[in-house]
């Protein structure tokens, strides 16, 4: 029996939806949050289609999805971090650590593939743990901590390899290409990996306490602590998840390049943050979705792919991507103003 009109005591507040909205359970606000980026993605795709026929081909879309996958995986981890009101600037460096660990174990130590991949993930998770421990125990803002560990982890990767890339991993472990270059049932393996990570991330965020508290901590850390939630434990988990995502991205990229490079993924953290922000997640924490982040990563890949097809230089692409980030936040701001 409860209709929005019953809430006579709500003063100037956003309502769950206009009268015509048929799903009282689902807030229109939550949908429109991802609807904006989705509509942008569709319109942009149609526009690019009118310019280049080949853009809409299934091959090109698989290409776009593959190109988006690396950023999307980092973005999924980053969504958790940003939802808590934090940020992780060290993810590009963590990818490099993971990559270098894999290359060294396989080429220098003669490890077989599976244990090596496991260690690459662990290396990522460990880096995340370090970030999380410093942030929670040292009570230092995540921005500062990860600004520092960005240097530390990158330095570690460079020192471990003396700054030299480790080439030709598949010569020793021929199966190592399954993570980056092969197709499974016509779908590039990075896309499949991303899909799996997405499903796991989605389930965690929606169905677990960790998910609930990820939103709660970002929304109001104090109230969450006063509810008896062990804040540090959940924050730590979030940075470990971020590290694991970076580890997975490291495996994917190392396989794709067939080499471990200490300089790899420089600036990847900024792309990941961009995907999260374009996807409608608030940088202040507390609201946002992983679906949005996937759309954000796709949007960035579509722009790069489409502009490349149109022979626009990479320099212009950079300008366009930058403008899109600002535009996304601007649209979000307008949406909020209308809602408030």
């Amino acid at each position, binding site marked *: 029996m*409860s209709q929005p*009109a*019953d809430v006579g005591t709500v003063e*100037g507040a956003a309502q769950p939806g206009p009268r015509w909205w048929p799903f009282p359970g689902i807030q229109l606000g939550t949908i429109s949050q991802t609807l904006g980026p989705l509509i942008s993605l569709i319109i942009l795709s149609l526009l690019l289609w009118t310019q280049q026929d080949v853009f809409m081909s299934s091959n090109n879309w698989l290409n776009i999805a593959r190109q988006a996958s690396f950023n999307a995986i980092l973005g999924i981890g980053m969504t958790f971090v940003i939802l808590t009101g934090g940020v992780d600037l060290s993810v590009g460096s963590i990818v490099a650590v993971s990559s270098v660990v894999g290359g060294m174990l396989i080429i220098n130590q003669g490890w077989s593939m599976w244990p090596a991949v496991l260690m690459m993930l662990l290396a990522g998770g460990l880096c995340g743990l370090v970030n999380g421990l410093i942030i929670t125990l040292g009570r230092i803002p995540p921005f500062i901590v990860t600004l520092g560990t960005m240097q530390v982890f990158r330095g570690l990767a460079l020192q471990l390899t003396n700054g030299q890339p480790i080439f030709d991993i598949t010569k020793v472990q021929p199966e190592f290409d399954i993570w980056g270059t092969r197709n499974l049932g016509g779908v590039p393996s990075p896309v499949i990996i991303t899909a799996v990570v997405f499903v796991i991330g989605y389930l965690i965020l929606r169905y*677990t*306490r960790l*998910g*609930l508290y990820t939103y709660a901590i970002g929304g*109001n850390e104090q109230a969450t602590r006063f509810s*008896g939630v062990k804040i540090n434990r959940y924050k730590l988990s979030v940075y470990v998840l971020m590290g694991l995502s970076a580890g997975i991205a490291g495996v994917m990229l190392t396989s794709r390049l067939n080499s471990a490079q200490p300089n790899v993924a420089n600036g990847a953290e900024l792309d990941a943050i961009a995907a999260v922000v374009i996807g409608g997640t608030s940088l202040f924490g507390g609201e946002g979705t992983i679906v949005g982040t996937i759309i954000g990563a796709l949007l960035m890949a579509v722009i790069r792919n489409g502009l490349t097809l149109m022979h626009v230089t990479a320099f212009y692409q950079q300008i366009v991507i930058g403008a899109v980030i600002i535009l996304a936040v601007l649209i979000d701001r307008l949406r909020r103003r209308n809602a408030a």
Partner: protein
Amino acid sequence: MIPQPLDLTAPSPPSVLELRGISKRFPGVVALDDVSFDLRAGEVHVLVGENGAGKSTLVKILSGIYQPDAGEILLDGRPVTLPDPHAAQELGISTVHQELNLVPHLDVGRNMYLGREPMRAGGIIDWPALYRGATAQLAALGMTFDPHTRVRGLGVALQQMTEIAKALIAEARVLILDEPTAAITAEESEQLFRIVDRLRGQGAAIVFISHHLEDAYRIGDRVTVLRDGKHVATQPLAGVSTRNLIQWMVGRELTQQFPERPHAPGPVALRVDGLNRQGVLHDIAFAVRQGEIVGLAGLVGAGRTEVARAVFGIDRIDSGEIEVHGQKVRITNPNEAIRHRMALLPEDRKQQGLVLLLSVADNVVMAAPGKISSLPGIAPPGRRVSTADRFIEALRIRTPSARQRTMNLSGGNQQKVVLAKWLLTEADIFFFDEPTRGIDVGAKVEVYRLMNELLARGAAIVMISSELPEVLGMSDRILVMREGRIVAELDGPSATQESVMTLAAAAEEVVA
């Protein structure tokens, strides 16, 4: 029988500010419906109404934050538009909002002159002139504090004075005070009233918004009552009784503000002994029985909230013993307090009680996710909603659904969500800190009823409140606090406002 409000037909002095037929809609809500209002020079016009009556919306329209959908605003008889807050200030309409708008890192003088700094030739700020002006303006308000004081270190009351002084420097002719007495002590309120009196004497036109009807009688010339976005009455306060005002506000007769309950306290649920926190709490000792409300009274800053925070494990204590149901316990964080089935309903609901961005359901299950699923770490959204639905029904929480964000609920309903959170943890020792602050009259009674239901189920309640009628009406025993100490224990039914206030404020005389 509700008296029919009359409108004044006698000739009256010209209005400085007039609103005609103002309407403002938000999706799903008509916040203001054809509201008219006028304000004369040299008068204090009090605006009252329950939460959601439209007071805040009206203030936001007057200060240029919202644009009305219909109606006109006249200043000195000429229609004006207020497209933004700056425009309103330029026209001489200044608002002191409930959330103060000062720059905390700057001092009082710089805040007062922010954007209007006196200049020397060459674009250089004339600092001596600025501080001279600030000192003079403060003195004109009867204030003697140093304009070099940083705003950050000031209490709410002095920050308010700074805002008022700032408005005067902006040459405000219309001053809007939005709930200025909500967060300050009775004495500070009295000081504020003296300043408002002085400004009225100088011909200022003042809109005064308050939840406290006593404020209206103390300071107001006329009163306007809003209810559900509609104008109900505008009357000179001299001819209106409190009873009438409340009836206009709620549209019904309030028979019994504090519901009766059988008085049958059981065994001691919580005992605190020798609790110390350096510079804050000294030798705090008290006990609360099951089925009993112990009221903590005292002035703001007497340490009442700090007692609750210390027992609940938020602030570290230097020494002291806590016993729960006869068992000695050690509590160093809220999590441990909750395990001993304690609950804290904080004074600042929006900052400490709720995650406003999250839904009713998520807030309800926040403290006890283990209650909705036996699988470790799992908290399925469907269960969150069905759990919350139970409480929405039981506590009559007014919300379109359990998925509604708590930011969209009124104060009373937000408080019920916080209570639902603690009911789910099956708490039996409750700390209610200012349980009805910012809650409208009707919802207050509901909160009191819920507290009584808790008592009937054997809960023990510690209630902190600055509203004396509430302390007197609800408490079985009253502990009066002063400067971090419990200075007296009074029997609830026989205590009077005077006896509590005298004990709470006595320190001032001793010090002076």
